[in-house]
């Protein structure tokens, strides 16, 4: 008789479920394809096929039970695990995080320096030819020019000499004849202008020309003839923007004439494609002559500047010298001002795809792939380009565990403490749990209350209790406060180790109490009774009968507990953070176990070393897996499978 028949409702429910799941996965798959996450999309496609295969056909019955579990396990456990493990054969650390392609393009982008003179301009930022994408700058190059001052005809009879006996301290003593019989005198150096009166000067008898004054010595004729070549370029100060130049000497006297010095501007427009010198007539100038507008050039408004700021910051404009020189915009105009700041830069690091090398065009240095994840200067091994990339380095990370003393020494200490910590934790938890279990193994008064209170640490969320213990054991915490002592429970190497064990004992002894008291009840009472009849005292019964039996029953749990504590990340990380550090700045600390040390190596330091962390995690994996396999074999869990 068939009692179980196909149920229509069950089939309909299944179909609805499968359709819903498939359409949701399908939607996600299409989105993943859309954003270019091909790997994820392919995974989702496989999931979709697997679900269809499992639930719409009858080919594999077990798959009906496994399909959802397998999907989650692969996506969030196996893939991350394989990724992490595979990183152990890569140089994968801060500075070597990218793929090689990304590294090349970053180096290429960053290989830019200012030109030798730090040439810089205040520029107006805008666009050329009416296209906003054609970013351009209008620059004004300041230039000093000099020449005869228009409208000034004054000429002075001048004597060239020097001051205070120092022949490099040039000066001119000049006489200004500005009305028939009125004379004025002044002394001019390249940087100063001093009017003099009749009383200050000694005059030449005939024509009232000053020939000497205090501190001033005239050059002799011989000296002047040796200086003739330099004299036309000498400038002496006159009024603001004006200066005095000397003509040819006549009988030791020069004719000084007033010249003018002024600032003029050359203008240029730089776009992405061309560098244009713009004649002044095509320029709209501000009061001082600086260009603020030009033909075909339109200034960006403040709103446009902030809208396009990204493009403006990255644009490379043509410079008068050909590439690798270019103009880059360094700072945008401040609100209310017109001028941004542009500097001339050189693309000094150039990539050559054919030879896979970078060349510094300024120094000529050549950087080649060093096989370890960086472009390195073969001539100067310490000179390499940042950033590097993830490079397969075979077993370098593993060998460095043994060969590099900076890694090996803390690792050995951490490893020893990991074993000691897990071992001592299991021993202390088991011992105290067993003691309590034996004590409570009789119906004494108040047993229920004792029991409820003693399993409280186990019932409380451990994350909270660890943090609370951390606060209590702190230098200013409750333990020191109540006992009125100041003991650095968490900051001394050995005390910190003791504290960690103590807190873990608190967390774990109720577990072993519960387990042990259950097991004690499972031991037949007849054994103890017959031993007692044979004359054994209670201690002997415990030592020779109860304990061996208990140990035999609980060995798998003790091994499991050892394996769990071997990787007990939370207690270490939340209680001491692995500290105190072995020495200032070292990653590893006195209470670090392998997993917390590895976590810190990978995530908590400034130089994160995923490659090394992965290598250590492979070692942890092998240790824990072999321990657990041993434990499982012992407890014969796997034996009853066909």
């Amino acid at each position, binding site marked *: 008789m068939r009692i179980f028949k196909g149920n229509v409702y069950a089939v309909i429910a299944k179909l609805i479920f499968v359709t819903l799941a498939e359409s949701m996965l399908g939607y996600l798959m299409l989105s993943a394809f859309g954003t270019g996450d091909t790997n994820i999309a392919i995974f989702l496609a496989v999931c979709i096929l697997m679900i269809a295969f499992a639930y719409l056909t009858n080919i594999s019955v077990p798959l009906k039970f496994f399909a959802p579990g397998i999907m989650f396990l692969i996506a969030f456990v196996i893939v991350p695990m394989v990724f992490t493990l595979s990183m152990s054969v890569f140089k994968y650390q801060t500075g070597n995080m990218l793929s090689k392609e990304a590294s090349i393009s970053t180096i290429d982008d960053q290989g830019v320096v200012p030109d030798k003179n730090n040439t810089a301009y205040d520029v107006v930022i805008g666009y050329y030819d009416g296209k906003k994408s054609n970013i351009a700058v209008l620059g004004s190059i300041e230039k000093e020019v000099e020449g005869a001052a228009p409208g000034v005809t004054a000429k002075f009879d001048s004597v060239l000499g020097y001051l205070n006996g120092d022949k490099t301290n040039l000066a001119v003593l000049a006489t200004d004849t500005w009305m028939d019989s009125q004379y004025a005198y002044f002394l001019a150096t390249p940087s100063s202008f001093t009017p003099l009166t009749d009383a200050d000067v000694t005059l030449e008898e005939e024509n009232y020309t000053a020939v000497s004054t205090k501190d001033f010595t005239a050059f002799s004729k011989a000296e002047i003839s040796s200086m003739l070549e330099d004299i036309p370029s000498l400038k002496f100060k006159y009024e603001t923007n004006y200066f005095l130049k000397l003509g040819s000497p006549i009988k030791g006297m020069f004719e000084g004439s007033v010249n003018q010095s002024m600032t003029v501007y050359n203008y240029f427009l730089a776009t992405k494609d061309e560098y244009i010198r713009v004649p002044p007539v095509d320029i709209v100038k501000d009061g001082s002559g600086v260009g603020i507008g030009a033909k075909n050039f339109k200034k960006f408004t403040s709103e446009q500047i902030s809208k396009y700021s990204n493009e403006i910051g990255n644009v490379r404009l043509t410079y008068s010298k050909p590439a690798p020189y270019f103009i880059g915009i360094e700072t945008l105009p401040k609100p209310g001002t017109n001028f941004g700041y542009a500097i001339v830069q050189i693309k000094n690091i150039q990539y050559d795809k054919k030879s896979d090398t970078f060349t510094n065009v300024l120094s000529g240095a050549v950087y080649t792939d060093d096989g370890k994840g960086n472009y390195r200067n073969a001539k100067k091994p310490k000179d390499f380009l940042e950033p590097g990339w993830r490079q397969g380095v075979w077993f370098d990370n593993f060998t460095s565990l043994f060969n590099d003393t900076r890694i090996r020494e803390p690792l050995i200490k951490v490893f020893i403490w990991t074993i000691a910590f897990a071992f001592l934790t299991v021993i202390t938890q088991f011992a105290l749990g067993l003691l309590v279990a034996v004590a409570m193994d009789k119906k004494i008064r108040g047993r229920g209350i004792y029991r409820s209170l003693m399993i409280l640490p186990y019932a409380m*969320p451990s994350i909270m209790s660890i943090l*609370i213990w951390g606060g209590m054991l702190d230098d200013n915490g409750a333990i020191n406060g109540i006992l009125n002592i100041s003991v650095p429970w968490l900051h001394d190497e050995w005390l910190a180790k003791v504290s960690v064990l103590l807190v873990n004992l608190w967390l774990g002894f109720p577990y072993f109490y519960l387990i042990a008291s259950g097991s004690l009840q499972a031991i037949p009472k007849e054994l103890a009774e017959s031993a007692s009849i044979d004359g054994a005292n209670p201690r002997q019964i415990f030592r020779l009968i109860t304990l061996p039996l208990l140990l035999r029953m609980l060995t798998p749990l003790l091994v499991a507990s050892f394996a769990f504590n071997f990787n007990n990340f939370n207690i270490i990380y939340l209680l001491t953070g692995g500290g105190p550090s072995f020495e200032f700045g070292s990653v590893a600390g006195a209470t670090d176990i392998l997993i917390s040390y590895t976590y810190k190596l990978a995530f908590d330091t400034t130089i994160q070393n995923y490659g090394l962390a992965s290598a250590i995690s492979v070692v942890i994996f092998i240790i824990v897996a072999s321990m657990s396999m041993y434990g499982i074999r012992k407890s014969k869990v*796997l034996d009853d499978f066909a």
Partner: protein
Amino acid sequence: MTFFHWFRQNSWRHIVGLLGTVFAIFPLYLVVLASFSSDQSLQSTSFVPSSFVLDNFTMLFTDPKIPFLLWMKNSALIAGAVSLLSVFIGAASAFAFSRLRFKGKRTGLQALLLVQMFPSVLALSAIYVIMERVFVFAPQWGLGTLGGLVLVYLGGSMGVNIWLMKGFVDSIPLELDEAAKVDGASAMQTYWQIFVPLAMPILSVVTLLSFIGLFNEFILARMFLPENESRTVAVGLQGFIGGQYNANWGPFAAGSLLASVPIIIVFMTLQRYIIGGLTAGSVKG
């Protein structure tokens, strides 16, 4: 009965019981004290409460920067969804491992065990990268969302739950399945109509253990949910005392108390079942 004899018989048991009790409860006592104290530190110098104020509790419920209720809700939602779903999904696998005959069963079980041995803390960066990508095409399931964390937790809890439940399934007598088979039941029908009703109490306990375990999860939750409003209660409360110099033990203690009490009550009520689960090989974290 001499006193010595009585002492040998019973009082040492009381001494052990008393000392064990004091050791077990004094940190908890201090938490209660701190939560009702006006002092912001765990530096109480006596066991006697010096003040009794509710400031710390009112702060948790009124301070807009401390969305304690949201944190609790997030934790309950995440742990609840994951424990229910993972038992729902895992039970089927456990059943298959226990009852069905198929090629590669032993290998599968060993592989599952092996995968569980991998220190998952170290796979964080890989999970981060994956979920960062997921966020790009499915913003409701990616990094920083409760949904995304649920997915990641689901994957992580699969291994341990399958193992745990397989132990239970093994203990259910085979005769029932065989009878069902004789009566023409398919594997699916046996699962839904025979196994699931029988295993319901056990499945509930595994759900509960799983819930407590997830409630305790810290590292992944901290990395995954950086927004204040989306934090879990463990991460949120840790924020009070995370900084070196601004340890706010008062609100932390009050929050821990509120978050722990429901769990403690459930644990105490169901301890008989939970202890059954413990001996099957689970170690609570």
